[in-house]
């Protein structure tokens, strides 16, 4: 297992987990989301190949009501 910070919460994930694995595990609707890995946006077509590393900071954001 490796340790990542996922939306501000320290979480354990399997070694060799990808961004897509994380989204599927979290049941996130990826169509409505954007993913930032260590302050850089991950393009959607790289979700399945981008591996997570120990200490990574991942932010998954969506749109909410706002003015």
């Amino acid at each position, binding site marked *: 297992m490796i340790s990542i910070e996922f939306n501000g919460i320290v979480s354990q994930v399997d070694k060799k987990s990808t961004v897509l694995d994380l989204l599927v595990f979290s049941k996130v609707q990826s169509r*409505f989301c*954007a993913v930032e890995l260590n*302050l850089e946006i991950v393009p*959607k077509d790289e979700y399945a190949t981008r591996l997570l590393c120990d200490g990574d900071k991942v932010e998954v954001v969506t749109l*909410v*009501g706002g*003015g």
Partner: protein
Amino acid sequence: MTNEPPVPALADLPPPESKLLRVGSHSLNSRLIVGTGKYDSLQLMKESLEASGSDCVTVAVRREKLYDREGKNLLDYIDLAKYTLLPNTAGCYNAIDAVRVARLGREILKSLENPGADWVKLEVLGDSKTLLPDPIATLEACKMLVAEGFQVLCYTSDDPIMAVRLKAAGAASVMPAGSPIGSGQGILNPNNLRIILEYLKAGDPDYPVIVDAGVGTASDVSMAFELGADGVLLNTAIAHARYPVAMATAMKHATISGRLAYQAGRIPRRLYATASSPEDGSITSRPW
């Protein structure tokens, strides 16, 4: 036959193009832009948006809730074929964060194939009590976003000098606040707004100025348009009205009437009265 003056028809007054609000590469059918926040329910929001007649709505970028998620997303209640989304950078207190949030918003809108992917409502705040913009950080973020190809709609105070600086930095629209966000105080300083409109439209009459924030009720919207604003952006005035759908309807009419009144050309203010009925042919006596 006497020579009757021509009757100006309603259709003569607003040229068809001026019915549209043009901001950068975007053309909107309604001059009213509405927010999607603070509604008691997403269904109420959806019905209020419809009643407002708007075709552009603002949205915020936030962390996906990983726990306690109800399974409902805002986007399940917004017809993406009907509305252009305008992502904001609300809640940012420095330029770096604002750019980061703007990029994330663009990323989501790109995947939704919504035309709003190339623009952003820039908001860089200075303090959480007043929610007034930090002018220095706003200018800095505006420059950075313009350099990245964003069309920036820039929330600012009603300071005319700042408005000029933001336009010069490449903002697609400058959006002065009528009064603090969510305060419902309306347009506190119409003279500043007049000066902003004069300065930003000098030699560039189509440059869009949108009054953003502070609207409390329909007359505030009409007033903004009567002053010559090209658009109004509001959220709380509808979302927190006792009957949001009714208030949204009122805002739609206020937009139409305020804009039309501006185009029709108001009479000048005079100190003394001018009689509407003719003096000529009067059968009554005068006290003087």
